[in-house]
Protein backbone atom coordinates (compact mmCIF):
# COMPACT_ATOMS: atom_id res chain seq x y z
CA UNK A 1 0.00 0.00 0.00
CA UNK A 2 2.68 2.42 1.06
CA UNK A 3 4.85 1.94 -1.96
CA UNK A 4 1.80 2.21 -4.20
CA UNK A 5 0.86 5.44 -2.52
CA UNK A 6 4.36 6.73 -2.89
CA UNK A 7 4.44 5.86 -6.56
CA UNK A 8 1.03 7.42 -7.15
CA UNK A 9 1.97 10.65 -5.50
CA UNK A 10 5.21 10.73 -7.42
CA UNK A 11 3.28 10.23 -10.64
CA UNK A 12 0.86 13.02 -9.80
CA UNK A 13 3.65 15.46 -9.12
CA UNK A 14 5.54 14.43 -12.24
CA UNK A 15 2.41 15.08 -14.28
CA UNK A 16 1.92 18.46 -12.63
CA UNK A 17 5.53 19.42 -13.25
CA UNK A 18 5.38 18.50 -16.90
CA UNK A 19 1.95 20.02 -17.53
CA UNK A 20 3.48 23.45 -18.24
CA UNK A 21 5.61 21.80 -20.88
CA UNK A 22 2.47 20.32 -22.42
CA UNK A 23 0.80 23.74 -22.45
CA UNK A 24 3.88 25.34 -24.01
CA UNK A 25 4.07 22.73 -26.75
CA UNK A 26 0.34 23.05 -27.36
CA UNK A 27 0.60 26.81 -27.71
CA UNK A 28 3.59 26.62 -30.04
CA UNK A 29 1.88 24.04 -32.24
CA UNK A 30 -1.27 26.16 -32.40
CA UNK A 31 0.70 29.30 -33.26
CA UNK A 32 2.55 27.60 -36.09
CA UNK A 33 -0.48 25.71 -37.37
CA UNK A 34 -2.74 28.75 -37.41
CA UNK A 35 -0.21 31.15 -38.89
CA UNK A 36 1.06 28.73 -41.53
CA UNK A 37 -1.86 29.35 -43.93
CA UNK A 38 -1.08 33.07 -43.78
CA UNK A 39 2.58 32.65 -44.71
CA UNK A 40 1.63 30.24 -47.47
CA UNK A 41 -0.76 32.76 -48.99
CA UNK A 42 1.24 35.96 -48.43
CA UNK A 43 4.92 36.67 -48.85
CA UNK A 44 6.76 36.73 -45.50
CA UNK A 45 9.05 39.61 -46.40
CA UNK A 46 6.39 41.94 -47.81
CA UNK A 47 4.12 41.19 -44.85
CA UNK A 48 6.70 41.89 -42.19
CA UNK A 49 7.97 45.04 -43.88
CA UNK A 50 4.63 46.20 -45.33
CA UNK A 51 3.39 49.58 -44.11
CA UNK A 52 -0.35 49.19 -44.58
CA UNK A 53 -2.56 47.26 -42.19
CA UNK A 54 -6.04 47.12 -43.71
CA UNK A 55 -7.21 43.62 -42.80
CA UNK A 56 -10.86 44.09 -43.74
CA UNK A 57 -10.42 46.11 -46.93
CA UNK A 58 -10.98 44.65 -50.40
CA UNK A 59 -8.40 43.33 -51.14
CA UNK A 60 -7.01 43.13 -47.59
CA UNK A 61 -3.52 44.39 -46.81
CA UNK A 62 -1.47 42.82 -44.04
CA UNK A 63 1.61 45.03 -43.65
CA UNK A 64 2.88 44.40 -40.13
CA UNK A 65 5.85 46.71 -39.96
CA UNK A 66 3.96 49.60 -38.36
CA UNK A 67 2.72 47.21 -35.66
CA UNK A 68 6.15 45.67 -35.01
CA UNK A 69 7.75 49.11 -35.00
CA UNK A 70 5.13 50.38 -32.56
CA UNK A 71 5.79 47.52 -30.14
CA UNK A 72 9.54 48.10 -30.29
CA UNK A 73 9.22 51.88 -29.95
CA UNK A 74 6.85 51.71 -27.00
CA UNK A 75 9.01 49.08 -25.28
CA UNK A 76 12.15 51.15 -25.79
CA UNK A 77 10.35 54.17 -24.34
CA UNK A 78 9.19 52.13 -21.38
CA UNK A 79 12.77 51.04 -20.73
CA UNK A 80 13.91 54.66 -20.60
CA UNK A 81 11.37 55.13 -17.80
CA UNK A 82 11.76 51.90 -15.85
CA UNK A 83 15.49 51.14 -16.04
CA UNK A 84 16.75 54.20 -14.13
CA UNK A 85 13.86 54.13 -11.66
CA UNK A 86 13.94 50.35 -11.23
CA UNK A 87 17.69 50.01 -10.78
CA UNK A 88 17.83 53.19 -8.68
CA UNK A 89 15.16 51.77 -6.39
CA UNK A 90 17.04 48.49 -6.11
CA UNK A 91 20.29 50.27 -5.25
CA UNK A 92 18.56 52.42 -2.67
CA UNK A 93 16.85 49.49 -1.00
CA UNK A 94 20.02 47.46 -1.02
CA UNK A 95 22.63 50.05 -0.16
CA UNK A 96 21.06 52.93 1.72
CA UNK A 97 17.66 52.03 3.14
CA UNK A 98 17.56 50.95 6.76
CA UNK A 99 15.46 48.07 7.94
CA UNK A 100 12.35 50.21 8.48
CA UNK A 101 12.42 51.85 5.03
CA UNK A 102 13.03 48.51 3.40
CA UNK A 103 10.04 46.99 5.15
CA UNK A 104 7.87 49.74 3.64
CA UNK A 105 9.43 50.04 0.18
CA UNK A 106 9.49 46.39 -0.78
CA UNK A 107 5.79 45.65 -0.16
CA UNK A 108 4.82 48.92 -1.85
CA UNK A 109 6.68 47.91 -5.00
CA UNK A 110 5.06 44.50 -4.88
CA UNK A 111 1.63 46.13 -4.69
CA UNK A 112 2.55 48.13 -7.79
CA UNK A 113 3.22 44.81 -9.50
CA UNK A 114 -0.15 43.49 -8.38
CA UNK A 115 -2.28 46.24 -9.92
CA UNK A 116 -4.21 44.75 -12.87
CA UNK A 117 -3.08 46.11 -16.22
CA UNK A 118 -6.58 47.31 -17.09
CA UNK A 119 -6.39 49.64 -14.11
CA UNK A 120 -3.16 51.08 -15.47
CA UNK A 121 -4.92 51.44 -18.80
CA UNK A 122 -7.84 53.29 -17.26
CA UNK A 123 -5.53 55.54 -15.30
CA UNK A 124 -3.48 56.28 -18.40
CA UNK A 125 -6.50 56.94 -20.58
CA UNK A 126 -8.56 59.08 -18.21
CA UNK A 127 -5.90 60.86 -16.13
CA UNK A 128 -2.44 60.79 -17.73
CA UNK A 129 -3.47 61.32 -21.38
CA UNK A 130 -5.72 64.37 -20.85
CA UNK A 131 -3.15 65.81 -18.45
CA UNK A 132 -0.26 65.49 -20.91
CA UNK A 133 -2.45 66.80 -23.70
CA UNK A 134 -3.18 69.99 -21.71
CA UNK A 135 0.36 70.32 -20.40
CA UNK A 136 2.19 69.89 -23.71
CA UNK A 137 -0.46 71.33 -26.01
CA UNK A 138 -0.44 68.22 -28.22
CA UNK A 139 -3.43 67.20 -30.38
CA UNK A 140 -4.03 63.99 -28.41
CA UNK A 141 -2.72 62.44 -25.22
CA UNK A 142 -3.24 58.91 -26.53
CA UNK A 143 0.16 58.39 -28.10
CA UNK A 144 3.45 56.51 -27.98
CA UNK A 145 4.85 58.75 -25.27
CA UNK A 146 1.97 58.19 -22.84
CA UNK A 147 1.98 54.47 -23.57
CA UNK A 148 5.74 54.29 -22.86
CA UNK A 149 5.28 56.21 -19.63
CA UNK A 150 2.51 53.96 -18.30
CA UNK A 151 4.22 50.77 -19.49
CA UNK A 152 7.45 51.95 -17.91
CA UNK A 153 5.79 52.39 -14.55
CA UNK A 154 4.25 48.93 -14.90
CA UNK A 155 7.65 47.36 -15.54
CA UNK A 156 9.36 49.05 -12.55
CA UNK A 157 8.54 46.26 -10.07
CA UNK A 158 9.97 43.58 -12.36
CA UNK A 159 13.20 45.47 -12.88
CA UNK A 160 13.62 46.65 -9.29
CA UNK A 161 12.88 43.41 -7.47
CA UNK A 162 15.00 41.28 -9.82
CA UNK A 163 17.85 43.81 -9.64
CA UNK A 164 17.57 43.78 -5.89
CA UNK A 165 17.83 40.01 -5.92
CA UNK A 166 20.92 40.26 -8.12
CA UNK A 167 22.52 42.75 -5.72
CA UNK A 168 21.81 40.56 -2.73
CA UNK A 169 23.46 37.59 -4.43
CA UNK A 170 26.81 39.40 -4.44
CA UNK A 171 28.72 37.74 -1.59
CA UNK A 172 29.46 39.88 1.42
CA UNK A 173 33.14 39.04 1.17
CA UNK A 174 33.38 41.07 -2.09
CA UNK A 175 32.24 44.22 -0.34
CA UNK A 176 34.31 43.57 2.77
CA UNK A 177 37.43 42.93 0.72
CA UNK A 178 36.92 46.11 -1.26
CA UNK A 179 36.34 48.25 1.82
CA UNK A 180 39.30 46.65 3.56
CA UNK A 181 41.52 47.65 0.68
CA UNK A 182 40.60 51.25 1.36
CA UNK A 183 38.01 51.78 -1.39
CA UNK A 184 35.25 54.27 -0.61
CA UNK A 185 31.62 53.19 -0.57
CA UNK A 186 31.08 54.73 -3.97
CA UNK A 187 34.11 52.98 -5.42
CA UNK A 188 32.97 49.70 -3.92
CA UNK A 189 29.52 50.17 -5.42
CA UNK A 190 30.60 51.15 -8.93
CA UNK A 191 33.75 49.04 -9.27
CA UNK A 192 32.83 45.90 -7.33
CA UNK A 193 29.14 45.44 -6.54
CA UNK A 194 27.65 46.68 -9.83
CA UNK A 195 30.01 44.72 -12.10
CA UNK A 196 29.43 41.61 -10.01
CA UNK A 197 25.67 42.04 -10.13
CA UNK A 198 25.80 43.37 -13.70
CA UNK A 199 24.52 40.40 -15.59
CA UNK A 200 21.84 39.79 -12.96
CA UNK A 201 20.67 43.36 -13.46
CA UNK A 202 20.77 42.86 -17.24
CA UNK A 203 18.50 39.86 -16.78
CA UNK A 204 16.13 42.06 -14.79
CA UNK A 205 16.07 44.63 -17.58
CA UNK A 206 15.49 42.01 -20.27
CA UNK A 207 12.62 40.44 -18.35
CA UNK A 208 11.22 43.95 -17.85
CA UNK A 209 11.35 44.40 -21.63
CA UNK A 210 9.63 41.08 -22.08
CA UNK A 211 6.86 42.26 -19.80
CA UNK A 212 6.51 45.58 -21.62
CA UNK A 213 6.45 44.14 -25.14
CA UNK A 214 3.78 41.59 -24.24
CA UNK A 215 1.53 43.98 -22.35
CA UNK A 216 -1.83 44.30 -24.06
CA UNK A 217 -4.64 46.04 -22.23
CA UNK A 218 -2.67 49.15 -21.34
CA UNK A 219 -1.41 49.83 -24.84
CA UNK A 220 -4.82 49.07 -26.29
CA UNK A 221 -6.29 51.85 -24.17
CA UNK A 222 -3.45 54.36 -24.16
CA UNK A 223 -1.38 54.11 -27.36
CA UNK A 224 -4.04 55.59 -29.66
CA UNK A 225 -4.17 52.69 -32.08
CA UNK A 226 -3.17 54.30 -35.39
CA UNK A 227 -1.26 51.88 -37.60
CA UNK A 228 1.36 54.34 -38.89
CA UNK A 229 5.07 54.89 -38.41
CA UNK A 230 4.95 57.79 -35.94
CA UNK A 231 6.65 61.03 -36.99
CA UNK A 232 7.20 62.03 -33.36
CA UNK A 233 6.91 60.39 -29.95
CA UNK A 234 3.61 62.23 -29.52
CA UNK A 235 1.93 60.42 -32.42
CA UNK A 236 -0.45 57.52 -31.84
CA UNK A 237 0.81 53.99 -32.52
CA UNK A 238 -0.70 50.51 -32.69
CA UNK A 239 1.41 47.77 -31.07
CA UNK A 240 1.10 44.10 -32.06
CA UNK A 241 -0.62 43.04 -28.86
CA UNK A 242 -3.42 45.57 -29.06
CA UNK A 243 -4.00 44.70 -32.71
CA UNK A 244 -4.56 41.05 -31.80
CA UNK A 245 -6.74 41.93 -28.82
CA UNK A 246 -8.89 44.40 -30.73
CA UNK A 247 -9.40 42.31 -33.84
CA UNK A 248 -9.37 38.66 -32.82
CA UNK A 249 -12.91 38.80 -31.45
CA UNK A 250 -14.36 39.72 -34.82
CA UNK A 251 -12.01 38.14 -37.32
CA UNK A 252 -13.94 35.32 -38.98
CA UNK A 253 -12.38 31.98 -38.08
CA UNK A 254 -10.25 30.62 -40.89
CA UNK A 255 -10.12 33.91 -42.82
CA UNK A 256 -6.78 35.42 -43.90
CA UNK A 257 -7.31 38.09 -41.24
CA UNK A 258 -7.61 35.40 -38.56
CA UNK A 259 -4.42 33.69 -39.70
CA UNK A 260 -2.66 37.06 -39.99
CA UNK A 261 -3.40 37.75 -36.33
CA UNK A 262 -1.89 34.40 -35.43
CA UNK A 263 1.14 35.33 -37.53
CA UNK A 264 1.52 38.49 -35.44
CA UNK A 265 1.20 36.34 -32.33
CA UNK A 266 3.96 34.10 -33.64
CA UNK A 267 6.27 37.06 -34.28
CA UNK A 268 5.54 38.39 -30.80
CA UNK A 269 6.25 34.98 -29.30
CA UNK A 270 9.59 34.83 -31.14
CA UNK A 271 10.53 38.24 -29.75
CA UNK A 272 9.71 37.37 -26.13
CA UNK A 273 11.32 33.95 -26.56
CA UNK A 274 14.52 35.64 -27.75
CA UNK A 275 14.40 37.97 -24.73
CA UNK A 276 13.96 35.05 -22.35
CA UNK A 277 16.75 33.00 -23.90
CA UNK A 278 19.12 35.96 -23.70
CA UNK A 279 18.08 36.55 -20.09
CA UNK A 280 18.71 32.90 -19.25
CA UNK A 281 22.18 32.90 -20.85
CA UNK A 282 23.15 36.11 -19.11
CA UNK A 283 21.94 34.98 -15.71
CA UNK A 284 23.72 31.65 -16.04
CA UNK A 285 26.95 33.49 -16.69
CA UNK A 286 26.19 35.67 -13.67
CA UNK A 287 25.83 32.71 -11.35
CA UNK A 288 29.04 31.18 -12.65
CA UNK A 289 30.91 34.44 -12.11
CA UNK A 290 29.86 34.56 -8.47
CA UNK A 291 30.91 30.99 -7.96
CA UNK A 292 27.36 29.84 -7.26
CA UNK A 293 27.61 26.94 -9.70
CA UNK A 294 24.80 26.63 -12.14
Amino acid at each position, binding site marked *: MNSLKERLIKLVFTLLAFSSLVFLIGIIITLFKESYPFFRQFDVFTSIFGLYWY*PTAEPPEFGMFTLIFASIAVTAGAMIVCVPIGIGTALYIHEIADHKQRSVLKPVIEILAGIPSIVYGFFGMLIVAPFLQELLGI*PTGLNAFTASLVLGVMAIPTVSSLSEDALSFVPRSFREASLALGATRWQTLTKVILPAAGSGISTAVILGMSRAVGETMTVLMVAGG*AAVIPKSIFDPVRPMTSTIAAEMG*EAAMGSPHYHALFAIGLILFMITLAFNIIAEIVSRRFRLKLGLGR
Partner: protein
Amino acid sequence: MKGFFKIILLTAISMILISSGVFAAGTTITIKGSTTVLPIAQSTAEAFMDANPGINISVQGGGSSVGITSLIDGTCDIADSSRQIKKEEIEKAKKKGVNVNEIKIAMDGIVIIVNPRNSIKAITRQQIKDIYTGKISDWSELGAKPGKIVVLSRDTSSGTYEAFEVLALNKEKVRADALINASNQAIASTVGTTPGAIGYVGHGYLTKKVKDIPVEGIKATKQTILSGKYSLSRPLFMYTNGKPAGDIKKFIDFVLSKEGKKMVEEEGFVGLK
Protein backbone atom coordinates in the same frame (compact mmCIF):
# COMPACT_ATOMS: atom_id res chain seq x y z
CA MET B 1 -5.42 7.38 0.13
CA LYS B 2 -8.97 6.12 0.46
CA GLY B 3 -10.04 9.43 1.97
CA PHE B 4 -8.50 11.24 -0.98
CA PHE B 5 -10.64 9.34 -3.50
CA LYS B 6 -13.70 9.80 -1.35
CA ILE B 7 -13.24 13.56 -1.44
CA ILE B 8 -12.87 13.54 -5.22
CA LEU B 9 -15.96 11.39 -5.60
CA LEU B 10 -17.99 13.60 -3.28
CA THR B 11 -16.88 16.74 -5.08
CA ALA B 12 -17.80 15.25 -8.44
CA ILE B 13 -21.23 14.16 -7.24
CA SER B 14 -21.99 17.49 -5.62
CA MET B 15 -20.88 19.35 -8.76
CA ILE B 16 -23.22 17.29 -10.90
CA LEU B 17 -26.05 17.91 -8.46
CA ILE B 18 -25.41 21.65 -8.32
CA SER B 19 -25.17 22.06 -12.07
CA SER B 20 -28.27 20.03 -12.77
CA GLY B 21 -30.08 22.16 -10.20
CA VAL B 22 -29.05 25.31 -12.07
CA PHE B 23 -30.19 23.99 -15.42
CA ALA B 24 -33.49 22.80 -14.06
CA ALA B 25 -34.42 26.27 -12.85
CA GLY B 26 -35.97 27.31 -16.21
CA THR B 27 -35.26 27.94 -19.86
CA THR B 28 -32.36 30.15 -20.83
CA ILE B 29 -32.29 32.38 -23.89
CA THR B 30 -28.80 33.41 -25.01
CA ILE B 31 -28.41 36.68 -26.86
CA LYS B 32 -25.09 37.62 -28.42
CA GLY B 33 -23.79 40.22 -30.81
CA SER B 34 -23.47 43.90 -31.65
CA THR B 35 -22.29 46.25 -28.94
CA THR B 36 -24.60 48.85 -30.47
CA VAL B 37 -27.66 46.70 -29.85
CA LEU B 38 -26.34 45.58 -26.46
CA PRO B 39 -28.01 48.32 -24.35
CA ILE B 40 -31.38 47.54 -25.97
CA ALA B 41 -31.01 43.82 -25.38
CA GLN B 42 -29.87 44.37 -21.81
CA SER B 43 -32.62 46.68 -20.64
CA THR B 44 -35.41 44.79 -22.38
CA ALA B 45 -34.09 41.45 -21.11
CA GLU B 46 -34.02 42.73 -17.52
CA ALA B 47 -37.59 43.99 -17.70
CA PHE B 48 -38.69 40.81 -19.45
CA MET B 49 -37.13 38.57 -16.79
CA ASP B 50 -38.82 40.58 -14.03
CA ALA B 51 -42.15 39.96 -15.69
CA ASN B 52 -41.42 36.28 -16.53
CA PRO B 53 -39.52 34.71 -13.61
CA GLY B 54 -39.31 31.29 -15.28
CA ILE B 55 -37.28 32.54 -18.23
CA ASN B 56 -33.62 33.38 -17.94
CA ILE B 57 -31.90 35.58 -20.53
CA SER B 58 -28.16 35.87 -20.88
CA VAL B 59 -27.00 38.89 -22.88
CA GLN B 60 -23.49 39.16 -24.29
CA GLY B 61 -21.67 41.61 -26.56
CA GLY B 62 -18.82 40.67 -28.86
CA GLY B 63 -19.92 42.38 -32.06
CA SER B 64 -22.32 41.74 -34.92
CA SER B 65 -20.12 39.16 -36.64
CA VAL B 66 -19.61 37.22 -33.42
CA GLY B 67 -23.38 37.20 -32.82
CA ILE B 68 -24.16 35.91 -36.29
CA THR B 69 -21.37 33.31 -36.13
CA SER B 70 -22.73 32.13 -32.78
CA LEU B 71 -26.24 31.84 -34.21
CA ILE B 72 -24.87 29.72 -37.05
CA ASP B 73 -22.91 27.58 -34.57
CA GLY B 74 -25.98 27.22 -32.41
CA THR B 75 -24.35 28.82 -29.36
CA CYS B 76 -26.92 31.60 -29.12
CA ASP B 77 -30.65 31.89 -29.70
CA ILE B 78 -30.78 35.50 -30.81
CA ALA B 79 -28.01 37.35 -32.67
CA ASP B 80 -27.91 41.13 -32.33
CA SER B 81 -26.57 42.92 -35.36
CA SER B 82 -26.01 46.50 -36.41
CA ARG B 83 -25.67 45.44 -40.04
CA GLN B 84 -27.67 43.27 -42.37
CA ILE B 85 -26.54 39.65 -42.54
CA LYS B 86 -24.18 38.91 -45.44
CA LYS B 87 -24.97 36.47 -48.23
CA GLU B 88 -22.04 34.23 -47.28
CA GLU B 89 -23.33 34.08 -43.74
CA ILE B 90 -26.79 33.01 -44.85
CA GLU B 91 -25.26 30.28 -47.03
CA LYS B 92 -22.99 29.13 -44.20
CA ALA B 93 -26.03 28.98 -41.93
CA LYS B 94 -28.00 26.94 -44.46
CA LYS B 95 -25.19 24.41 -44.65
CA LYS B 96 -25.48 23.94 -40.91
CA GLY B 97 -29.25 23.69 -41.09
CA VAL B 98 -29.87 27.11 -39.61
CA ASN B 99 -32.62 29.09 -41.31
CA VAL B 100 -31.83 32.72 -40.52
CA ASN B 101 -34.82 34.91 -39.75
CA GLU B 102 -34.46 38.69 -39.70
CA ILE B 103 -36.32 41.02 -37.34
CA LYS B 104 -35.83 44.77 -37.57
CA ILE B 105 -36.05 46.15 -34.04
CA ALA B 106 -34.95 49.79 -34.18
CA MET B 107 -33.18 52.48 -36.17
CA ASP B 108 -29.80 53.91 -35.33
CA GLY B 109 -28.26 57.12 -36.55
CA ILE B 110 -24.52 57.53 -36.69
CA VAL B 111 -23.78 60.96 -35.34
CA ILE B 112 -20.68 62.99 -36.18
CA ILE B 113 -19.36 64.53 -32.97
CA VAL B 114 -16.75 67.13 -32.16
CA ASN B 115 -15.50 68.82 -29.00
CA PRO B 116 -17.93 71.45 -27.65
CA ARG B 117 -15.17 74.07 -27.97
CA ASN B 118 -15.10 73.51 -31.74
CA SER B 119 -16.83 76.33 -33.66
CA ILE B 120 -17.88 74.21 -36.65
CA LYS B 121 -21.63 74.30 -37.32
CA ALA B 122 -22.24 72.04 -40.30
CA ILE B 123 -20.52 69.40 -42.35
CA THR B 124 -21.14 67.73 -45.70
CA ARG B 125 -20.80 64.05 -46.51
CA GLN B 126 -17.95 64.90 -48.86
CA GLN B 127 -16.12 66.69 -46.03
CA ILE B 128 -16.61 63.73 -43.69
CA LYS B 129 -15.20 61.45 -46.34
CA ASP B 130 -12.26 63.78 -47.01
CA ILE B 131 -11.43 63.99 -43.31
CA TYR B 132 -11.58 60.25 -42.82
CA THR B 133 -9.66 59.34 -45.96
CA GLY B 134 -6.91 61.87 -45.31
CA LYS B 135 -7.59 64.65 -47.83
CA ILE B 136 -8.44 67.19 -45.11
CA SER B 137 -6.21 67.41 -42.03
CA ASP B 138 -6.76 70.87 -40.60
CA TRP B 139 -9.89 72.48 -39.21
CA SER B 140 -9.16 75.70 -41.14
CA GLU B 141 -10.08 73.82 -44.34
CA LEU B 142 -13.61 73.60 -42.95
CA GLY B 143 -13.70 77.24 -41.97
CA ALA B 144 -13.16 76.56 -38.29
CA LYS B 145 -10.33 77.66 -36.01
CA PRO B 146 -7.04 76.29 -37.40
CA GLY B 147 -5.64 73.20 -35.71
CA LYS B 148 -4.85 69.60 -36.49
CA ILE B 149 -7.89 67.37 -36.87
CA VAL B 150 -7.60 64.40 -34.52
CA VAL B 151 -9.52 61.73 -36.39
CA LEU B 152 -11.09 59.03 -34.22
CA SER B 153 -12.31 55.78 -35.67
CA ARG B 154 -13.37 52.34 -34.52
CA ASP B 155 -11.73 49.01 -35.11
CA THR B 156 -12.31 47.72 -38.60
CA SER B 157 -14.21 44.80 -37.13
CA SER B 158 -16.74 46.89 -35.19
CA GLY B 159 -20.33 47.02 -36.42
CA THR B 160 -20.44 50.79 -36.08
CA TYR B 161 -17.33 51.00 -38.25
CA GLU B 162 -18.85 48.75 -40.89
CA ALA B 163 -21.95 50.95 -41.02
CA PHE B 164 -19.87 54.14 -41.11
CA GLU B 165 -17.71 52.69 -43.87
CA VAL B 166 -20.76 51.97 -45.96
CA LEU B 167 -22.82 55.06 -45.10
CA ALA B 168 -20.10 57.71 -45.09
CA LEU B 169 -17.00 56.44 -46.86
CA ASN B 170 -18.35 54.42 -49.79
CA LYS B 171 -16.05 51.63 -48.63
CA GLU B 172 -12.89 53.73 -48.97
CA LYS B 173 -10.14 53.13 -46.42
CA VAL B 174 -9.86 55.20 -43.27
CA ARG B 175 -6.56 57.12 -43.08
CA ALA B 176 -3.84 55.12 -41.39
CA ASP B 177 -3.09 57.77 -38.77
CA ALA B 178 -6.62 57.79 -37.35
CA LEU B 179 -6.80 56.95 -33.66
CA ILE B 180 -8.63 53.71 -33.03
CA ASN B 181 -10.87 53.52 -29.96
CA ALA B 182 -12.46 50.33 -28.77
CA SER B 183 -16.04 51.43 -28.08
CA ASN B 184 -18.69 54.09 -28.59
CA GLN B 185 -18.12 55.35 -25.05
CA ALA B 186 -14.36 55.59 -25.59
CA ILE B 187 -14.92 57.68 -28.74
CA ALA B 188 -17.33 60.00 -26.92
CA SER B 189 -15.03 60.42 -23.93
CA THR B 190 -11.95 61.08 -26.09
CA VAL B 191 -13.84 63.64 -28.19
CA GLY B 192 -15.01 65.27 -24.95
CA THR B 193 -11.44 65.75 -23.74
CA THR B 194 -9.69 66.49 -27.06
CA PRO B 195 -10.31 69.94 -28.56
CA GLY B 196 -9.31 68.99 -32.12
CA ALA B 197 -11.09 65.65 -32.27
CA ILE B 198 -13.80 64.37 -34.59
CA GLY B 199 -15.52 61.04 -34.13
CA TYR B 200 -18.65 59.08 -34.87
CA VAL B 201 -20.95 57.22 -32.47
CA GLY B 202 -24.34 55.60 -32.45
CA HIS B 203 -27.13 58.09 -31.64
CA GLY B 204 -27.56 56.30 -28.30
CA TYR B 205 -24.12 57.37 -27.15
CA LEU B 206 -24.50 61.12 -27.55
CA THR B 207 -23.47 62.81 -24.31
CA LYS B 208 -23.55 66.39 -23.11
CA LYS B 209 -19.76 66.49 -23.23
CA VAL B 210 -19.67 66.36 -27.04
CA LYS B 211 -21.27 68.41 -29.82
CA ASP B 212 -23.09 66.72 -32.68
CA ILE B 213 -23.02 68.45 -36.05
CA PRO B 214 -25.72 68.35 -38.74
CA VAL B 215 -24.77 66.42 -41.86
CA GLU B 216 -25.87 67.97 -45.19
CA GLY B 217 -27.90 70.48 -43.15
CA ILE B 218 -29.91 67.81 -41.35
CA LYS B 219 -29.52 67.22 -37.65
CA ALA B 220 -29.72 63.65 -36.42
CA THR B 221 -33.05 63.50 -34.57
CA LYS B 222 -35.49 60.65 -34.04
CA GLN B 223 -37.70 61.88 -36.87
CA THR B 224 -34.93 62.37 -39.40
CA ILE B 225 -33.38 59.00 -38.57
CA LEU B 226 -36.67 57.10 -38.71
CA SER B 227 -37.66 58.70 -42.00
CA GLY B 228 -34.21 58.11 -43.45
CA LYS B 229 -33.84 61.82 -44.17
CA TYR B 230 -30.69 61.88 -42.07
CA SER B 231 -28.22 60.18 -44.34
CA LEU B 232 -26.07 58.37 -41.79
CA SER B 233 -28.79 56.11 -40.42
CA ARG B 234 -29.27 52.37 -40.40
CA PRO B 235 -31.62 49.69 -39.12
CA LEU B 236 -30.72 47.37 -36.22
CA PHE B 237 -31.60 43.69 -36.27
CA MET B 238 -32.14 40.64 -34.17
CA TYR B 239 -31.66 37.34 -35.97
CA THR B 240 -33.18 34.03 -34.93
CA ASN B 241 -33.05 30.48 -36.21
CA GLY B 242 -36.33 30.16 -38.05
CA LYS B 243 -39.47 32.09 -37.09
CA PRO B 244 -39.27 32.73 -33.34
CA ALA B 245 -41.42 30.47 -31.22
CA GLY B 246 -42.11 29.91 -27.55
CA ASP B 247 -40.11 31.99 -25.10
CA ILE B 248 -37.98 33.54 -27.85
CA LYS B 249 -41.10 34.79 -29.61
CA LYS B 250 -42.39 36.11 -26.31
CA PHE B 251 -39.19 38.10 -25.84
CA ILE B 252 -39.05 39.46 -29.40
CA ASP B 253 -42.69 40.51 -29.13
CA PHE B 254 -41.79 42.30 -25.93
CA VAL B 255 -38.92 44.19 -27.62
CA LEU B 256 -41.29 45.30 -30.39
CA SER B 257 -44.10 46.22 -27.95
CA LYS B 258 -44.90 49.71 -26.76
CA GLU B 259 -43.02 49.06 -23.54
CA GLY B 260 -40.01 47.72 -25.45
CA LYS B 261 -40.04 50.71 -27.75
CA LYS B 262 -39.94 53.01 -24.75
CA MET B 263 -36.79 51.25 -23.57
CA VAL B 264 -35.24 51.44 -27.03
CA GLU B 265 -35.81 55.21 -26.95
CA GLU B 266 -34.44 55.49 -23.43
CA GLU B 267 -31.20 54.03 -24.73
CA GLY B 268 -31.09 56.78 -27.34
CA PHE B 269 -32.10 54.73 -30.37
CA VAL B 270 -35.19 55.27 -32.41
CA GLY B 271 -37.98 52.77 -31.95
CA LEU B 272 -40.06 51.58 -34.91
CA LYS B 273 -43.67 52.66 -35.24
